[in-house]
């Protein structure tokens, strides 16, 4: 088991290095003069020269890479061109909101998708299956930003059931930061009202973000359960009269979710990509809306740092998913 974990962590190192090199190359290869691009439109020639020196654009590329790695290692990404706040600080403060949103969506998608997939498989080729199949192909095809706006239109603007945007209502004082996640912090400090308000704000963005993932998880669970239902052990348990419900929801399900778990890892990338859009529509104060704003305003330091962070989070989550995978299917770590 330990060797499996170690092996998986070690194989992630080349991807992380590659990621560093890609973000490093982006700013150096694409624009005509990276120092001018980084300094922004309003920079004086002195500022441009200072940046040129700081990033080593006047020195060999290997030195530049070294300087870049040193900056990343110290979590020093410079200052945002617009807010003049350190980018590293902004990222640290915004990461919890994004994780709250993506995990909220992932939990929603898993908690609904797995049972729905089982139901679809049990009712194979009957009407619940047809409806769920139609909904799941629609869920993958829907544009997240349009779905977000439509949800706002219906539930926030027309029905006024849920808040339109943001993370907390005006006038609600956020709890003292412990983990950075509003919901967890307010629960830890027993501020139930604040937690409720934060939760209400999370509902629409999380639902919007979960749609694609929900569809995929439903599909893969259904396929997995259908396959397991053909296995001999299922026929045997049925023949000896084992309770059908327990057979399906415990034994068949456990043998079927592995494909869905792999998908969850792949989905995380899609969720983070989707979070960019959903956060922008709902003004959610996370990495995604920060990234969109930086891209729209050509705030390159923020853009590079946020892109890197997203890549790192994605890689780390994939390792975690592989570990869960190994726990569900021990054959995997015996092979390695």
């Amino acid at each position, binding site marked *: 088991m330990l060797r499996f974990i170690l092996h998986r962590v070690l194989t992630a190192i*080349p*991807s992380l290095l*590659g*990621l560093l*090199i*890609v973000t490093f190359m*982006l*700013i150096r290869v*694409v*624009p005509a003069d990276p120092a001018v*691009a980084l300094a922004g439109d309003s920079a004086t020639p002195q500022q441009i020269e200072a940046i040129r020196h700081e990033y080593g654009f006047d020195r060999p590329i290997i030195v530049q890479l070294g300087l870049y790695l040193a900056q990343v290692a110290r979590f020093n990404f410079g200052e945002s061109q617009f807010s003049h706040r350190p980018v590293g600080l902004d990222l640290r403060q915004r990461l919890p909101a994004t994780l709250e949103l993506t995990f909220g969506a992932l939990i929603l998608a898993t908690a609904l998708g797995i049972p729905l997939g089982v139901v679809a498989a049990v009712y194979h080729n009957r009407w619940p299956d047809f409806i769920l*199949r139609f909904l799941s*192909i*629609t869920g*993958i*095809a*829907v*544009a*997240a*930003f*349009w*779905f977000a*706006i*439509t949800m*706002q*239109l219906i539930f926030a*603007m*027309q029905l006024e059931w849920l808040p339109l945007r943001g993370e907390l209502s005006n006038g609600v004082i956020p709890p003292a930061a412990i983990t950075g996640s509003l919901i967890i912090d307010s629960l830890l400090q027993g501020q139930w009202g604040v937690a409720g308000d934060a939760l209400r704000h999370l509902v629409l963005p999380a639902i919007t973000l979960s749609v694609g993932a929900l569809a995929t998880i439903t599909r893969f669970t*259904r*396929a997995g359960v*259908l*396959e397991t239902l053909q296995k001999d052990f299922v026929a045997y348990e049925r023949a000896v009269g084992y309770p059908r419900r327990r057979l399906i929801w415990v034994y068949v399900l456990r043998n079927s979710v592995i494909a869905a778990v792999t998908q969850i890892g792949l989905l995380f*990338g*899609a969720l*983070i*990509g*989707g979070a*960019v*859009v959903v956060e*922008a529509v709902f003004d959610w104060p996370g990495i995604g809306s920060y*990234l*969109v704003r930086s*891209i*729209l305003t*050509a705030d*390159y330091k923020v*853009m*590079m740092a946020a*892109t890197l962070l*997203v*890549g790192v989070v*994605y*890689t780390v989550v*994939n390792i975690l998913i592989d570990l869960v995978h190994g726990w569900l299917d021990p054959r995997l770590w015996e092979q390695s």
Partner: protein
Amino acid sequence: MLILRKFARDIPALIGLVIVVVVVIVAVVGPWLAPYPKDAYASHLLQRLKPPSSAFPFGTDNLGRDMLSRVILGARGALEVALIVVGVAAAIGVPLGLVAGYRGGWVSESIMRVTDVFLALPQLILALALAQLMTPSLESAMIALALTYWPYFTRLVFAETRRLQSALFVDALRGIGAGDARILFLHILPNAMSPIIVRATIGMGFTILVAAVLGFLGMGATPPQPDWGLTISESRSYLPGAWWYSIFPGLAILVTVLGFNMLGDGLRDLVDPRLRRSR
């Protein structure tokens, strides 16, 4: 012909095919089909933000332009972008996958590592960053999307090439002295074509979605182009009053992407009958 009969029994795939054919027709004859073809650019301020009626079945936008016409006219742009992006991505990704799969050694290793890195980042984020660095425009958006989509082809073709390389017919070709280029492009590539076509079909739908996001965020099409994503972003200032302004372009994206996905799924089932029973 058996394959056609099999396809004809797959109802979702047939629906997908019908949708794709209709969207392609709309894209081609759009200017003749739209009730007010000039409304791509002309504005009529007296009729702004009219709800759906018999004169304007999808209502009008903030400049009084007919939404139905703009939705119809948007199809061409969406398909053009998707076709170009998927075409360029395949043109980059397929040869790289062939070489990586056939060669082995450090060539293969380095191509696949680069592919992995690209796949380790959400495509949307990479495409957004690239598009901004190249100064935002529709062309930049297309280049950015193509530069971030090729790894999907590379990984697929790599696996196919690896599989085919050990096939008997490749050994036979080597035995009679066929060159590497000949084996790769005239023999392995045609055999790998079906999964490539499936990937491209699904990629069309996927690209339409991502391109719409770029348009929505202002990194793609520019006003007054009748781009679906851009239109939805323009509509946001007029909600909740003018619901039709955002609903119809969104439905157009949904139906188009749905069509490509359903067709792609159907084609995949034809190509790989093992997956058949899982549907």
